């Protein structure tokens, strides 16, 4: 089946095309945040402007004509309302015009499923780390829903790094810059909070921000990153032992971090666990993962009626049924 998926939950407008479980196009356009963060209405405006072009790019990359598309997927949530609306509108318009079935997709499920696909994993513990989210999950085979084993009790690790980057005037102000500056830093002690399989980041963030100007920026970035990722690893390690799972994947925007993947690979080998993840373009927000999950939903007969397609800003992963 040839399925086109649209992702627009935050600053990226992404369009992917999947054919019989393989990704054949993954195009995107990203709203540039510079050093000031993002305004939802501006981002939505941006999405509306680039939608047509990104869809065209994806079709061209895949070498297929729009009329050949057999199904549409879109991100139902979680995400920013105004941004999700643009994706929904584009998806509905296409599905209506082409007269093909449509499937709503949970953004977090899509991140995990695409990591499983590229990592060749069957039933892993998933560490999902993005801007707003940081969760440790496992699929419950009875309900076919992901179950949260542990999670951040306050903010997501990505937003934590971004917030620090803005306060420290790093350019661009986000996590990957922290990782770049961290090279050449040395360790200083920072607040570390793990409770069982849950963790919190605000104490760490507040402390690191207070040190700006007092300590070397390299040392701050290095220590902030080391502390945050060690917390994630410890909670993940507990989840692995608890569930006796022998597979692990990492996904979501922060999974682009080389250091985090290096740490998780060591953790996995410590417990003779298979570790996998998707290439970076699929860890960042993207349309291919939406198409990938939508194809499974459509193939297993779970299309949604066009009129019933909506968005849900706070769409919890536990509420999304998974079709394999």
């Amino acid at each position, binding site marked *: 089946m040839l399925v086109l998926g649209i992702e627009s939950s935050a600053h990226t407008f992404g369009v992917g095309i999947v054919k019989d479980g393989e990704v054949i196009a993954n195009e995107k356009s990203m709203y540039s945040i510079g050093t000031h963060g993002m305004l939802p209405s501006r981002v939505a405006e941006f999405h509306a402007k680039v939608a047509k072009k990104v869809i065209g790019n994806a079709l061209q990359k895949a070498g297929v004509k729009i009329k050949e598309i057999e199904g549409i997927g879109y991100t139902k949530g979680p995400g920013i309302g105004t941004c999700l609306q643009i994706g929904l509108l584009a998806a509905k318009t296409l599905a209506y015009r082409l007269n093909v079935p449509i499937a709503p997709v949970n953004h977090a499920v899509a991140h995990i499923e695409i990591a499983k696909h590229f990592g060749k994993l069957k039933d892993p513990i998933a560490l999902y780390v993005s801007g707003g989210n940081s969760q440790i999950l496992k699929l419950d085979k009875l309900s076919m829903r992901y*179950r949260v084993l542990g999670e951040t009790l306050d903010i997501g690790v990505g937003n934590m790094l971004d917030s620090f980057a803005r306060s420290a005037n790093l350019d661009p102000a986000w996590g990957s810059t922290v990782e770049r500056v961290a090279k050449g830093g040395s360790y200083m002690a920072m607040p570390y909070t793990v409770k*069982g399989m849950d963790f919190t980041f605000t104490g760490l963030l507040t402390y690191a921000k207070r040190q700006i100007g007092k300590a070397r920026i390299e040392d701050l970035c290095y220590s902030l990153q*080391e*502390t945050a990722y*060690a917390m994630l690893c410890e909670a993940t390690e507990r989840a*692995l032992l608890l569930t006796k799972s022998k597979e692990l994947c990492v996904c979501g925007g922060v999974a682009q971090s080389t250091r985090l993947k290096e*740490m998780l690979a060591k953790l996995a080998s*410590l417990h003779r666990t298979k570790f996998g993840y998707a290439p970076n373009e699929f860890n960042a927000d993207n349309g291919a993962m939406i198409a990938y999950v939508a194809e499974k939903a459509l193939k297993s007969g779970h299309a949604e009626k066009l009129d019933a397609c909506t968005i849900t800003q706070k769409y919890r992963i536990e509420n999304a049924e998974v079709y394999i």
Partner: protein
Amino acid sequence: MRLLSEGAEAKIYLVSIFGTLLLVKKRHAKPYRASQLDIMLRKMRTKKEAHAMLVAKNAGVSVPAVYATGSDEIYMELIKGKLMRDSAFDRKIIADVGIELAKLHSAGIAHGDFTPANILLTNKGVCIIDFGLAEPNAGIEEKAIDLLLMKRSLSKEFYLLFENAYAKAYANSSAVLRRLAEIEKRGRYQARTIANV
């Protein structure tokens, strides 16, 4: 030294010293994290765990005696018994567990992982083990979490027996029970299963 059990944080070994069997709980290095952080965490936690066990012991809680501590290991008394998780238990035992937790909380300590996997049943009564996540200066919230973990692990009938015994034996129990009700209302905990290890 014989390996007895392996947890996420520590390994437990059986050692014989002067013909006496002891347990060593050792926190091994985690190669995935920065070595300074690794050393600091293992040191702090070992110290905290040993400290919580000592305070508990002095408060009359049934816990293994601590014989010695190193920077990343604790030598402790070997308790002969069976995990409550793997045993059949009666109403008397449940009430005893409630009383032990009351003593622990009265001493200002929250256990942090209070489940039947960390309670040993011996022929001299119950014994609380694994203070790896214990908080010696616990607030109401941490104490309420101890009850919550037990609630998730026991049948309704047994939990009520446990809670009654706890409430009778701990002067400040009503504040903890009120907090427990609050925590349960915060949706996040409803959707989750707190795993029982």
